[in-house]
């Protein structure tokens, strides 16, 4: 079975290396500051004990007050998974560091989030819409998006 690593365990390890970056943690997920996501991911990937070499997926959820990015990061060697979350407050001008420099697999997923949720990923080599066309009004996966604005 793929073990989901304890939030407590990951949080303490990350906090030891980068103090103050962890915001909170649950049974199996860790919330970190959005601007520090790249540093945390680099640590997860390069740490020999964690060795998270495979990015499974990046999801974005619109909770209206804030957006939440969810990273599922897997270690193929050790067969464990880390669930990393980051909150982005506000609706406009959202920028989060891109993790494409660590995992190329983030390329399309970050572009999709930019397209449908409107979160910009700084440092992405080709940040443009993935599914919709250039000039599409708004970001339709947001909760406040209307097909025909009133």
């Amino acid at each position, binding site marked *: 079975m793929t073990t989901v690593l304890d939030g407590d365990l990951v949080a303490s390890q990350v906090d030891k290396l980068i103090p103050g970056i962890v915001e909170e943690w649950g049974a199996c997920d860790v919330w970190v500051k959005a601007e520090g996501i790249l540093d945390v991911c680099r640590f997860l990937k390069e740490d020999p004990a964690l060795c998270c070499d495979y990015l499974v997926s990046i999801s974005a959820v619109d909770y209206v007050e804030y957006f939440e990015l969810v990273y599922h990061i897997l270690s193929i060697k050790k067969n464990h998974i880390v669930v990393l979350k980051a909150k982005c407050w506000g609706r406009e001008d959202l920028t989060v560091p891109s993790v494409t420099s660590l995992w190329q697999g983030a390329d*399309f997923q970050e572009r999709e989030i930019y397209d449908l949720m409107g979160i910009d990923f700084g440092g992405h080599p080709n940040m443009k819409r993935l599914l919709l066309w250039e000039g599409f009004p708004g970001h*339709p996966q947001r909760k406040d998006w209307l097909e025909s604005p009133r």
Partner: protein
Amino acid sequence: MPIRTEPVTLNLGPQHPSTHGVFRMRITFDGEMILDVEPVVGYLHRGSEKLAEERTYVQVITLTDRLDYVSSMSNNLAYVLAVERLAGVTPPERAMYIRVIVAELQRIVSHLVATGFFLNDLGALATPLMYCFREREKILDLFEMLCGARITLSYMRVGGIFQDAPLEFWPALRGFLGYMPGYLDEYERLITGNEILLSRTKGVGILSGETAINCSVSGPILRASGVNWDIRKADPYDVYDRVDFDIPVGTVGDNYDRYLVRIAEMRQSLRIIEQCVQQLPDGPIKTEVPSLVRPPKGDAYGHVEAPKGELGFYLVSDGSISPYRLKIRSPSLINLTALRDMLIGCKLADMIVTFGSIDINMGEVDR
């Protein structure tokens, strides 16, 4: 005096017979050599994730049919697993066995389609494809017995399956298990040692194991690159931990390895189905779950080894009758990330073959 040359940019698609749907590639050539590739997707975008937010948990099953429309069973399974994890429901034993049987039948369908179209892309027009479709028809007949549909099945339910298999299903399945290995041998005689296939696919479109992991590639492509990773073994769901099967792994990661891995996986699928039929217990096929499921607040990630790779559903519930957010981790889209690495340095003539060996489905890429 040297001849002055400059790179040419060409648009392949969106309407092109080799793209299996509507897919566009912007390719830059230097003569016949590929310098750069940029996939352009979205022509089939239907907003499945947004549509799911306005439907009940059970209604969303029909949306998942239409993601990868040659493997609806696997899509159904991945989705109901995510909902079951969220709602804390366990299906009865018999349902889990039947789910594994149909998911493996679906894997054979998908790999047959992949193999047939792969050879079609190579220029072996229609003959191998018709051989592959002959067996695919037989499996679709089995699916028709189960639920009346052939393509968009919606067979799985939260907490089990829609209905038990009719009595005539089991002899038909046994018959299929009897003749399918012979048909696989027939493909191998026809295709595997073929000199044209060998010279066109060996050493072409090589993807190394490290690049595959870095690009988040999954499924047969990852295994063909020599990475032994299969969710059925690594994170067994339903009853995969009770059956014995091997994971075929490639060595080089070229087009030929990807073809071989798919053929070998079909044989393993037959093994799994045989064991499941032997172990199949009697009993109920569905746990009682209200038709308007209201999972508690929270999130869950359910994933399966779909024929094309890891298919995952990230579900967020706010306690109401429809998902607050449904995110689909589609293997076809993410496997395309590696396309550029596979194609750069290739010749124009090998491009279509390499693209065909990834086996994508546009319904799943664009969602």
